[in-house]
Structures are given as structure tokens and as C-alpha cells.
């Protein structure tokens, strides 16, 4: 990676809710835009302001061709450059960083939105992600393929229903301290284990709640970051990795793409021993089994030892998902951007009630595609 650094100056999150029926996504994006401007004083003037915007949203979820066309004005992008990351939003962080590192610009405004409540069913949307010949006709979607993966992973790692319940209970405890989280009601392990089965072995409380949300951030070059914050957070590593499409071509419990993405991101950040170098992790645990599984992929839990990781307080050791994580509810397309936003708040010391001390280096992770076909890892430092 180039020797110059890119900073995240400020982040803004819209509160996640299961059904924001009273607000258009334009309204949600305007809220986070105003939030970022209020925090940083940044404007969109040609001379010194933001002239490049990266957005993240999805045509299928928005039911709009060119979903960014509906929100150009609330992205501040009138007569400015704007490009849409039509993929999980964490990749927008990487792309925004490239615009600055390339020298093309020194500021990028990044904002994403998704309203999972708008379509009748998010699973019907993700079903459209499968080839129309076989996968789609079989009825595959991101929830039921996660069920397949959960089964494979639980068998490999010894993770049980009780472990999954523990993960959900802890997620809600932290979510209760996060003003932006969706699912904040505390639950007992028994409730998790008794919750209805969605896709065996995934129960309703193992799955992230349907969520609406928007999230934004301002990125700046090293030279300009301090114009907008006293406390810039540096992106020191970014990488992603694509796995194969067909489920049968993959070791579903194997984390092959995530391992590669993590290895590359650590390499960029100069991390040699991740277990000793990482203070906080925000993983995209859309389903409870994914939390230990992705931790294995990130090299922070021994391969196949997800059970021990949960039993021996691994999540506490690495400060995993102090935001409540995806289990507390963020929409699918921008779940990774929320992970970054939360990690940045912790690094800045601005996480409020869920702030922990001594966080110097954090990881934000996201995944998309069925059963983790694609993973992205970002390393953030104070």
C-alpha cells in the first residue's frame, strides 16, 4: 500500500429500526449528511470541499434501477463525482480510500442506506442472487444457505445451541448500550433456544432482525484530516476476497476467502501476530454461528475451536461486537459500514455507554454472497 495514509474523520449512524415506514431512505441519508457536516464543518465547495462521493445501496432492495439516482441530492452529489459501490458497503471504504491514495482527491464522503422493510421479504431479494437455472429454482437464499453452513460449522467446531444462545444473549446486552442498535431487548438463553426454527439449525433469535438504516463517514488524506477532526482514525489495511459461487465447490466450514482477505489486510497493516495486535473486532455476524466462525477466519480463534472460544470468553478478550453487532440489527448492504463506524467510535473514545478503554487497533469485517462467498477486512488504528 502506498506510504500515505487515509483517515476516517467522522462517522454518522442512523438508528436502525425494523420498520421505518414513516421515512424515505432519502430522509435517512439527509440525517446522516447533516450529522457529518455538523461534526466536521465540511462542505461541498469545488475549491476545498467534497467533490467525490461514494455511495452504497442496492437496486433490488430499493426496487430502483440505479438506486443512487434517487439519492444523489441527499449525498451532496449535485454536479459532483459520485460512484456507487453496488456491493457490501465495507468495500466502499476501500474504494473511497483508493480515490484519496490515487491523488485524484483528498476528501471523500461515503454514505450508504438500505431498507430491508421495504420489500416483502429480504430472503426473496437474496434468492435473486442465485443463478436462474438451478440455485434460484431450488429456493436458495442467504438465510437457508447460512443454515447449511451453520450445520457444517457446528459439526466441525463443537459449537452447540447453548453456545449460540450465549452469543445472542451477549449481543443484546451490548446492544442495549448502543443508541443506534435495533434489537436491544435483553433475552435469556432459554428464549433463544425456544425461539422458532427458521432454517435448521438457525432459529429466529440467531438471525439478525429485519433492519432499516443509513450510515455515513468522511474520509480525508493525511494532509487534510486534521481540518475536520482532532482525532483521525487511520485505515492501515484493506483487503477482500472472493470465494467460488457453487456451495459444493467450497468447504463451507473452511473460511478460505476470509483467511485470504485477513492475511492480506494484516500484511498491509504490518500485523504479524493478530492475536497480540488487535484490541477490538466488529464482525458481520448476521447469524449467531458466524461470530465464532469469522473469528476463526480472522485468525483470532483456533481453527475448529469455536466452542472453546465462546466458553473461555474469547468475545470479551477481543472486544467482539460491542455495538451488539449485526445480531442487534443492521441492514445487509451497509452492515459492514456500521462495523467500521462502531470501530471508529471506539478508537476515538466516543462510543458512549459501550466504550471500552485501551483500544488502539481494531478490525472491521463484512461479508456478502451466500454463506460468506465474499469477505472484506479493514484494519483501523488510532
Amino acid at each position, binding site marked *: *500500500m*502506498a506510504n500515505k495514509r487515509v483517515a476516517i474523520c467522522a462517522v454518522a449512524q442512523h438508528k436502525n429500526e425494523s420498520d421505518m415506514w414513516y421515512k424515505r431512505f432519502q430522509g435517512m441519508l439527509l440525517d446522516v449528511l447533516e450529522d457529518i457536516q455538523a461534526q466536521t464543518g465540511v462542505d461541498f465547495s469545488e475549491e476545498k470541499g467534497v*467533490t*467525490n462521493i461514494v455511495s452504497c445501496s*442496492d*437496486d*433490488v432492495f430499493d*426496487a*430502483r*434501477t*440505479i438506486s*443512487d*439516482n*434517487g439519492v*444523489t441530492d441527499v449525498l451532496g452529489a*449535485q*454536479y*459532483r*463525482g*459520485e*460512484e*456507487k*459501490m*453496488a*456491493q457490501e458497503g465495507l*468495500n466502499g471504504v*476501500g*474504494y473511497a*480510500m*483508493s*480515490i*484519496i*491514495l*490515487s*491523488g*485524484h*482527491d*483528498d476528501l471523500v464522503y461515503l454514505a450508504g442506506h438500505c431498507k430491508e422493510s421495504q420489500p416483502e421479504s429480504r430472503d426473496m*431479494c*437474496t434468492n*435473486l*442472487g*442465485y*443463478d436462474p437455472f438451478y*440455485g434460484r429454482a431450488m429456493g436458495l437464499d442467504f438465510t437457508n444457505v447460512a443454515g447449511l453452513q451453520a450445520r457444517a460449522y457446528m459439526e466441525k467446531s463443537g459449537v452447540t445451541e447453548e453456545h449460540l444462545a450465549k452469543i445472542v444473549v451477549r449481543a443484546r446486552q451490548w446492544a442495549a448500550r448502543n443508541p443506534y442498535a435495533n434489537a436491544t431487548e435483553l433475552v435469556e438463553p432459554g428464549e433463544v433456544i425456544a425461539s422458532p426454527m427458521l432454517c435448521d439449525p438457525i432459529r429466529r433469535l440467531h438471525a439478525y432482525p429485519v433492519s432499516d438504516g443509513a450510515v455515513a463517514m468522511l474520509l480525508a488524506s493525511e494532509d487534510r484530516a486534521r481540518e475536520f477532526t482532532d482525532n483521525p482514525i487511520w485505515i492501515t489495511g484493506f*483487503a*477482500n*476476497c*472472493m*470465494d*467460488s*459461487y457453487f456451495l459444493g465447490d467450497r468447504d463451507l466450514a473452511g473460511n478460505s*476467502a476470509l483467511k*485470504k482477505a485477513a492475511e*492480506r489486510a494484516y500484511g498491509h497493516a504490518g500485523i504479524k501476530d493478530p492475536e497480540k495486535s488487535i484490541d477490538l473486532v466488529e464482525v458481520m455476524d448476521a447469524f449467531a454461528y458466524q461470530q465464532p466462525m469469522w473469528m476463526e477466519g480472522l485468525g483470532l480463534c483456533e481453527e475448529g475451536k469455536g466452542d472453546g472460544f465462546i466458553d473461555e470468553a474469547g468475545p470479551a478478550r477481543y472486544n467482539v461486537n460491542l455495538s451488539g453487532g449485526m445480531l442487534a440489527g443492521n441492514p445487509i448492504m451497509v452492515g459492514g459500514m456500521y462495523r467500521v463506524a462502531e470501530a471508529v467510535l471506539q478508537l476515538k473514545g466516543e462510543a458512549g455507554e459501550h466504550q471500552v478503554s485501551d483500544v488502539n487497533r481494531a478490525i472491521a469485517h463484512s461479508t*456478502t*454472497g*451466500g454463506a460468506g*462467498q*465474499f469477505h472484506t477486512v479493514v484494519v483501523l488504528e488510532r
Partner: protein
Amino acid sequence: MAKHKKNRNVGIIGIGQTEYSSHKEHQNQAEMVNEAVRYALEDANLIMDDIDCVIHGNMELFEMIYQPDMWHEIGTGAYGKEEFRITTGGTTGASLVCAADNLVASGMYDVVLAIGLEKLQEGHTTGGITNMACPLWFRHIQTGALTGTTASAMIDEFGEERAKKAAMKYRIMMDKNACLNPRAHRRFGLDYDQADDLMNTSPQLVGDLRLIHMCSQSDGACVMIFASEEKAKELSDKSIWIRDHITVHREETFNMFGFKKPEMTHHYAARKLFERNGVKDPVEYFDVFEMYDPSAWWGPDWLREFLLLEGDEHIKMLEQGDFDIDGKLPVNPSGGVIATNPIGATAMLRPAEAALQVRGDAGKHQIKGEVKHALASGFGGTMWTVLIMLEKYLDW
């Protein structure tokens, strides 16, 4: 927008295109992508191992595939690699080139492969475009990308006869170019003596926008490979350099038909780009312009905007053959969008074809004389525009 000099130079080192046609029943989407990927690798004399990162783009609602890069993975070669998916409507292909420019110049990746594609036959194109409009209101009014407003405005400004003739001149010129390009989708073999007949008898779509004027709906994929200056010099002896790019978007509403016309994004983009690169007279400077021209009305009208011309200068130049393939500034020697329009790839075809011209590898539609400076544009959304400058030599 580039405010500063790029961190490092970026070269185009490989170009691959499928043939374009109205239907490709013989291959599915992933197979079609794979065909173009193979051609590009072959052109660059590389293998997939040489590629660090893949960028993918097309419109989800045209084929109704959510996150199609996941399925297309079996054709893109992205397995085990880094990948991005960037879409911006009609400008997608050009945005992918800008993204590749950013990603390579950033130092994050040395070699990037970008894929623009569409299989329009697998959906309803006009319906898909109509879905860009707000579902609460304008979706009920819009008819895809069809509008007769530019025709009306040109007829108002230049008189019916001259305006209609200019559009037909442009249309037939494009067909003549397309006939030289074996990959072009629609090659009719039109001749200038058909102009009067066609401009009065071709079926009307909207107002004076007739079927003959409108762009095609095509299936096809275009792939380009980009490398940092150092890598490009090591891997290729035919690199074409991206000098600069600019993207200008505007708001959702098509509210530009009032009493006062705002500055067009095309004009704004050209003005800014040329200013910061010291291009005083674009007609003199550029040797070829591959323009995203969705219709034979928009084509000539937009030449005025992009080339910063005034009054009827663009019509005059068109009439006197300045934009012909052997003219002063050839426009779309490939036949342009009117001939070939696989939407997610269309805006990538512009810099790809422009780069082939600079390389001297365009084949039968190669323009005569050395091509040193090329301009390429993309168009999409509600008058969104992308402009890309290509150079033969690293001497700017």
C-alpha cells in the same frame, strides 16, 4: 475529480470484447463474461494469475439478478482475488474505468481487470430504465430513456429541415462506421440518399425521436485490463495512458425543461476537465472522440456541450463532415451507442474503442493518421456524465 496529480500513472494494457448482438442464447451471463475476459487476457498476453483485482458492473434490474458478481464469479476469474462491484446506470462502464484508474493509481493494486456487461435480452430494457424513476411519482410517467425534447429544442433552434437533416446525417454516419466494425450489433448499410425517406417514415417513438434515431438493445461484455506505469511497461509494449477522468452527477428529477436551462453536466464536466488539463481547444487537441450517444438527436446536441462549441458550430461541423471517420475530429468510428448498446458495457466501450484507436488496432474502422489524444464519454442516470482522457505518450 482530480484535484492533484495522480500518485502514479495508469495504463490500459488489454481489451476484450464479445461480439454484440440482440440475443445470445448460446451462452449464459457468466459464460458471456468469461468470453470477454479471455479475449482481454489474450490481448494483454496475461493469465488470470497476473490480475490482482477484478471490478464488475451491470444493472441488477435489467436481468433481475441481485449481486450478480457472485454468480458471475464462475466467469470473471475473481476467485481468490479482490473484487469490487461499481454501478452508476448508463455510465457504469466508464465508472469502472475511473475506478480502475483510482485503484491502480492508489498503489493498492498493480493490475486490475474491469468487466462491464449486459444481457438486455434477458429482461425488459425500457421497463428496466423506467424503474429508475421514483416509484411514488415519475415512474408512472417515464418511458425508459425515450424523450423527444432534444429533437424539439433542436428544431426550435435550427429550423425543422436543418435539424432533421443533421440528425439523419449523424445517424447514417454512425451506421457507416458501424458497418466497418465487425463487432458492432446493428449494421444496416444505410446510405445518405435514404435520409429524407427515413426521417419522415421511420416510426415515431416520442415526438420527432424516431426508431431510426434510437440506440439498440444489445447483449455483450467488454473487459479492460489496467496496470501501473511500472507494471505496464514490464508487461506490455502497447499501453495507452489514462490522463484524467471526471464524473458529474446531478439530482433525481428531470427538471431541466423549464424556462431556464441549467448548465448541462456534459458542459460542466468538459469545462472542468479541459481547464485543469490545459486543453484550450478540444476540437484541435483531440484526435478522436468516442461519445456515449443514445440517439441521433442527443449525439449532435451533446457534441456542442462536450466540445464547448457555441451556436450552430457543431451542426456546421457535422454538415461539412468534420466528425466523419476521415474528418477533423472523428466521432465514434466504432459506430457508437446507436449501433451497440449492452448498457453496463456501453460506457466502457467508449474508452476501450478510443484506446484501440490510439493503439492503431481498431481494424477496419481505424482512423487514418496518428491518434495521440482521445476523449471518451459515458452517460447515464438523469444526465450523468463521465469524461475520460487517454494519451498515447506519457508526455503531458
